[in-house]
């Protein structure tokens, strides 16, 4: 009994500690982005560009393929369901609302969490284990300025772009399938889509993907810095980081959807 209470207590303290640490990571990243210049330790431009390439440019192909496939899948499901009501043409409405609001940001978020979130944790964890983080601090380089701030900035730049690409590819996929099925031209499909989509729908998706960016960076970094215990520790932390960030993304998505659509 006593042991159970002890364990609950320990878990609670650990959780509070982790939340505190994550908030600190987020704060430090933004702090260095803004204050670095004034402290004569600006965030380095080439680091930001490197991150943009590895997070964004290298993910273009996979984001395109996945979103294209999700677009087709949505069109197939939509047409099948709506056929019963004889309302096949409403599938365009479904696609034009669901993709920018929900599917594109979520797919991109999960993909980037898997690709970049794991890479962030593995990289920082390995640096921690090989004393590279200590070496940075000894040289006088704040690790958050050197690693966290460029990541955060790059992510906030890249994620909206990837989501926009995802929007386009998913709508294209859905459009190709449904225009063939319904025998309408691609042009009139696009016209319909543009008629339906409002700026608000796109913005909703973009707001979400910014939140996802912060989640991925913060979870990835805080797990990386807490790595203990060699290669196995790095592996565990990486798994934990991906699982946690995907879970947070889905939960955050639900919360945002609730509030943004009321």
């Amino acid at each position, binding site marked *: 009994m006593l042991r159970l209470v002890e364990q609950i207590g320990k878990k609670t303290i650990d959780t509070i500690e982790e939340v505190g640490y994550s908030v600190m990571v987020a704060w430090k990243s933004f702090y260095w982005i803004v204050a670095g210049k004034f402290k004569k*330790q600006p965030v380095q431009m080439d680091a930001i560009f490197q991150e943009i390439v590895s997070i964004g440019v290298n993910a273009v192909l996979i984001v395109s393929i996945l979103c294209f496939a999700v677009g087709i899948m949505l069109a197939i499901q939509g047409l099948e369901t709506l056929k019963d009501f004889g309302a096949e043409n409403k599938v365009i409405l479904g696609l034009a609302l669901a993709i920018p609001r929900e599917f594109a940001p979520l797919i991109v978020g999960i993909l980037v969490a898997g690709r970049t979130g794991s890479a962030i944790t593995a990289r920082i964890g*390995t*640096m921690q284990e*090989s*004393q*590279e983080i*200590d*070496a940075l*601090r*000894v*040289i*006088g*380089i704040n690790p958050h300025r050197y690693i966290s701030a460029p990541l955060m900035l790059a992510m906030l730049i890249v994620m909206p772009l990837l989501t926009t690409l995802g929007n386009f590819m998913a709508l294209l996929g859905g459009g190709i399938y449904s225009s063939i099925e319904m025998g309408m031209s691609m042009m009139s499909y696009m016209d319909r889509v543009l008629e339906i989509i409002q700026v608000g729908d796109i913005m909703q998706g973009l707001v979400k993907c910014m939140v996802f960016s912060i989640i991925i960076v913060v979870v990835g970094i805080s797990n990386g810095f807490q790595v203990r215990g060699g290669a196995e520790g790095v592996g565990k932390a990486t798994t934990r980081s991906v699982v946690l960030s995907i879970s947070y993304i889905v939960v955050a998505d639900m919360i945002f959807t609730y509030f943004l659509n009321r």
Partner: protein
Amino acid sequence: MTNTIAIEVRDLVSHYGPRQILNHVNMTVYDNEIMVVMGGSGSGKSTLLRHLLGLEQATSGSIRLLGSDITALSEKEMYELRKEMGVSFQGGALFGSLTVGENVQLPLKEHTRLDSKTMQIISRMKLEVVNLSGFENLMPSELSGGMIKRVALARAIVMDPKLLFFDEPSAGLDPVTSAELDELIIKLRDVMKMTMVVVTHELDSAFKIADRITVLDQGNVLICGTVDEVKNCKIERVQALLSRQIRDDTVDAEAYLNRLTL
């Protein structure tokens, strides 16, 4: 030798969680002196080094480097002081994503406003000192263990620091390379007038390079003196360490049983 004090540790107490690692450690290192810190595994020597580097929070006590107490310095003052410190970590701690040359230039990029050509020349000069000229475009993963240590040394001395810290310089090196590194350490002290703290458990190397030796055991300073003083020291544990005797602590039967049946 002048008797100006470069490093002064007073009553340093340190804990790792509830475990006490250092117990009122006192140590004084004079200008232009090589102080070797020796001790078995778990003696607290690495922790002492981490404190000297400002990487750990002390429970109590003070550490003065070049006259300033680093336990009480502001972030900015510490940043300035770091320009006077160089560190060569046990595993080298080179940044895997940077070339050898970029690794050596990193402190310069951080602390100076030199143009990149000048930085390149300085880094080549330092690589020349450690006999690695022509290697600046290789990645750390392409180097052998001895080379990595030498690059780490080049990075440590690139700012011409007054204080140089070594963590296990000869660990994992073959006898010839390790002897060469010892020569290099002595040469650097003589030529560049540095004050050095070397943490090691290699006896031969310690006796060769040390001006004075501090022997740590379970967080306590056993003796601090010249090589001869340490060799002639009558303290049993010091002799045990020097003659590689195994610890013959008498076993307390009661305590032993208690530990087993805990």
